[in-house]
């Protein structure tokens, strides 16, 4: 790391050492109290009665059913939002059309809707008193208070993740490379697979892991549509709630610890992706003739 050059230029624009240390100390104490401590508490509480009790809690059939349902939900919801995210980003980033910014705003909408409201709207559409309720009952199809409702609610709350990761990335990359491929005779699919996809792969992975973390961990929306049938419609977060409310603290924290591990894993992958993305970007910046690497303020004299 060649920090020395940037450090010497910083002289005169930084604070006295005691201020630096105080601020750093304050920030670290805040992080320790609000982030490290809650994470550590999950594992300590889970192992309070030792490894045996921990493993026993995880082997329980209802816990297994919850794990399976959570995996199934994520396995359906994430690919659905992946296909949508890529399609929406292609249309929005590569073309000009009217209502584009409105569409972008609508895509962000599920982020600002409370999870509880997200669950409620599906009850209003598919529930017994809802729009489609009578028709569904006639045909003996259960959506709300069953697995399809859980998946739908999860799709709703994780809806924007991948699209909002890809749209700015693909916009910054422009259309020059794709146009070249098309002009040279590539089909649309070939262009996408061989030109666009390699360019957006880090953003794609980023979006997918964040989407997955939220899909597996969603609580509020799923809670409204699940019906809370043990062993059938309880996802892992809902199972945590059930166990906790029954004062089975160790079992609740044991299941919670799996979700915490998922969170840690997500953060680890995210950091690696960040690092690789930055490296790719810098590598691209060092090869100027191909493409003026987007959003990098390298070309000081050449710029307008």
């Amino acid at each position, binding site marked *: 790391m060649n920090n020395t050059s940037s450090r010497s230029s910083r002289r005169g624009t930084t604070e006295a050492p005691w201020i630096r240390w105080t*601020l750093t100390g304050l920030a670290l104490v805040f992080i320790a109290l609000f982030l490290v401590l*809650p994470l550590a508490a999950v594992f300590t509480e889970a192992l309070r009665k030792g490894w045996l009790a921990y493993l026993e809690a995880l082997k329980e059939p209802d816990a297994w059913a919850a794990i399976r349902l959570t995996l199934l939900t994520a396995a359906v919801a994430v690919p659905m939002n992946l296909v949508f995210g890529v399609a929406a980003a292609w249309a929005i980033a590569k073309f000009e059309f009217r209502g584009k910014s409105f569409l972008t705003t609508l895509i962000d909408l599920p982020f600002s809707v409370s999870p509880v409201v997200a669950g409620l709207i599906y009850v209003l559409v598919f529930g017994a008193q809802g729009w489609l309720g009578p028709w569904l009952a006639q045909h003996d199809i259960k959506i709300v208070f069953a697995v399809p409702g859980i998946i739908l609610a999860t799709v709703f709350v994780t*809806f924007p993740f991948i699209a909002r990761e890809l749209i700015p990335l693909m916009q910054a990359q422009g259309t020059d490379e794709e146009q070249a491929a098309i002009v040279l005779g590539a089909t649309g699919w070939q262009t996408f697979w061989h030109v666009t996809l390699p360019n957006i792969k880090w953003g794609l992975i980023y979006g997918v892991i964040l989407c997955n*973390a939220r899909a597996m961990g969603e609580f509020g929306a799923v*809670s409204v549509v699940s019906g809370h049938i043990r062993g059938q419609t309880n996802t892992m977060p809902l199972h945590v709630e059930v166990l906790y409310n029954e004062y089975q603290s160790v079992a609740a924290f044991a299941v919670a610890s799996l979700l915490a591990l998922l969170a840690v894993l997500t*953060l680890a992958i995210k950091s690696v992706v960040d690092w690789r993305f930055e490296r790719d970007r810098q590598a691209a910046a060092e090869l100027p003739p191909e493409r003026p690497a987007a959003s990098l303020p390298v070309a000081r004299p050449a710029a307008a």
Partner: protein
Amino acid sequence: MSASVTVLPLPAAGAGVSRRGSARVLPGFNLTLGFAVLYLSLIVLIPLSALVLKTLSMSWPQFWEAVTSPRVMASYRLTFGASLIAALVNVVFGLLVAWVLVRYPFPGKKLVDALVDLPFALPTAVAGISLTALLAGNGWVGQYFEPHGIQLAFNPNGVVIALIFIGLPFVVRTVQPVLEDTEKELEEAATCLGATRWQTFSRVIFPSIAPALLTGFAMAFARAVGEYGSVIFIAGNMPMVSEITPLIIIGKLEQYDYAGATAVASVMLVISFILLLVINGLQGWQRKRSAGAMA
């Protein structure tokens, strides 16, 4: 770029082509836009319109009574009050964390940087039971406050703490990139002209990060208003005292009061829309500011 007469398997151009001919070399516009709009409608817009229509089918007195009953009003006060306090705390500490991460070297910096996103990645229910275990009277943290008569869990204090946790990354992640891009030259100029470090911060640096700070505040606030999972474990959920608005909706649903639940939900939905517009406006302002700085 006019050599677009190659063999294209997909419909090459959309309906309103004329404006930007060159971009329409690429295929798949109709397909991808059509799919995106269809999917958006099925998953988001049609279900949300069910909420709006259900609300419109209620009579005004019925609606008004549902959304202004004393218990619901108490829940608004708690939800918005606690969200406001939490978002303000996050502005102060989020700025501090972002500042330290961008400006000062210290060991373990990358780890801390990665950890900031924990509230995004940790399921809210897990955060909820973990914070409760910490802050309850016999918990790691709570035991030091209990003897002094301060209760951190099962009352509004707990709600605020949970919302601080949930909103923490928003301010850090909006301020951090702006702080990275601030121009050292401006600060050097200020120093050369005799400004103290504090003057430089308050007159030069702060104005340039203010839009990002406001955006982060609005995002943290918006998230806190709708938050459910992390709060219900720690709040104690006493009617009139520590019951948040999303819990009111759940409570009404459990009593099969669909109309009441929908009415309260529509109030929350309108507030989310307003916050979304505010955030969009703030981001536009921020972009304009940074574009202005570049030119």
